[in-house]
């Protein structure tokens, strides 16, 4: 690669828009060209300055309050209109058929609920603390956009000292659960706005992301943020496109493992890889770690995640 090409592609490299092979060529050129290496550092600095400068621009509190008030007024208007339509249903000529329909529906729903409770006793408790679709998408996106960038990284990976204090040294905490995995990167990133502590591993060529983020309103389904800390369920699993995701929660953090491994394999991996971080953050968040299993390795690795009640 020539210097001219390097400079043309550099901004797209920072935006993670280049193919892995082109990234590799770019980094290789930077290693051997001090001028381009300096330009790379300066442009990275420019991007970070721009980001810091723009991140200070926020809507005023008054504007935010006006926005909330308008939304509530709009929702109130909609429900009044809906209530009017609802009441119209009870005009005399509609009353009997509507009442009959309601009765049939009630009987059907009672019957189905009864069946479901018998067949799936754990459904209610699992769903009650489910992660939001937004968080699942953001975790998947972080893995897709960020992890592959570090596939060729060869330098030892460690969290920079400039990240949030909770995340400093995270790769050392996670090491206890990462036997058999190779660590490529440790950093904090936010490809879609949500900040994740991101540890990038490989195992037999498969990319694996271990992610930690704050457990906030956007991360949890709306009506469940304030469930009691000690009643957090254990492991949750889901898919997004071709990715498998497994997640744990503590009072203030969510720990996720994301990969393209088949779901059962990702689940098994998650329940060892994430465990040291789960213990670490439960302690950090003021929760007990009693009941959490110890890690054992070898042919008889046992998954012992306990429901935390």
């Amino acid at each position: 690669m020539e210097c001219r090409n390097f400079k043309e592609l550099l901004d797209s490299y920072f935006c993670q828009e280049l193919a892995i092979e082109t990234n590799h060529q770019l980094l290789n050129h930077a290693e051997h060209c001090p001028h381009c290496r300096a330009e790379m550092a300066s442009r990275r600095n420019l991007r970070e300055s721009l980001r810091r400068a723009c991140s200070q621009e926020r809507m005023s509190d008054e504007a935010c309050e006006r926005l909330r008030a308008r939304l509530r007024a709009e929702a109130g208007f909609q429900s009044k209109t809906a209530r009017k339509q609802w009441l119209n249903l009870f005009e005399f000529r509609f009353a009997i058929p509507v009442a009959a329909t309601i009765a049939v529906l009630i009987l059907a729903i009672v019957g189905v609920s009864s069946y479901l409770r018998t067949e799936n006793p754990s459904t209610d408790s699992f769903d009650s603390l489910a992660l939001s679709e937004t968080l699942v998408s953001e975790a998947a996106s972080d893995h897709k956009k960020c992890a592959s960038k570090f596939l060729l990284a060869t330098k030892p990976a460690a969290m920079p000292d400039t990240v949030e204090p909770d995340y400093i040294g995270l790769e050392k905490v996670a090491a206890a659960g990462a036997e058999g995995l190779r660590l490529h990167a440790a950093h904090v990133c936010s490809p879609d706005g949500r900040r994740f502590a991101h540890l990038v591993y490989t195992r037999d060529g498969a990319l694996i992301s271990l992610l930690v983020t704050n457990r906030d309103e956007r991360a949890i389904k709306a009506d469940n943020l304030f469930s009691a800390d000690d009643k957090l369920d254990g492991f949750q699993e889901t898919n997004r496109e071709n990715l498998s995701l497994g997640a744990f929660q503590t009072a203030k953090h969510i720990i996720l493992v994301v990969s393209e491994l088949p779901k059962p394999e990702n689940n098994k991996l998650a329940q060892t890889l994430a465990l040291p971080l789960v213990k670490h953050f439960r302690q950090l968040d003021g929760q007990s770690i009693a009941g959490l299993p110890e890690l054992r390795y070898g042919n008889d690795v046992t998954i012992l995640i306990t429901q935390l009640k």
Partner: protein
Amino acid sequence: MIRNSAHNSQQQLETFEAQALGFTDQLFRVALRLCQDRAKAEDLVQETYLQAWRSFHRFELGTNLRAWLYKIMFNVHYSNQRKDRFHLVPVEETIAETLAYDPPTPQRLTEKEVLAALERLPRDFQVPIVLSDVEELSYREIADVMEIPIGTVMSRLHRGRKILRTELVNYARESGYKISS
């Protein structure tokens, strides 16, 4: 069970607020670049959220909410522009010069200098730069939310970033900073 629609609306609003309002500042940052005026930017964000709330029943949970909100914001902005007889002509028609020289990026930059240089760019360059370099949308996402071809996105980013670097070099020279060659 046929549910009371007022309770339903309240629950839906809480879901919407929990999921969508977290993007307020991100929308506002781009709105500032579009409107070049704080009060207008706040109005644009408010209008965006109202439209988004009205359309929320059509939004597919699990898809990219942030991109959806940006797209609504651009649609509202374009719609407002069409009502304004004096809206600005797109930049490609006013700036014919292509910069052949790409100066080295100054090493020492303050946030104030960088923001000032950004604000001197034509609006049509500021917006994709902020979407890409600050909000970290992909080129394809930018093309989708702005409803312009991806080639136009890449062209505006390429030229906009070059002009930004040139502005910073000129400022650095005037201020007596050393520029590495």
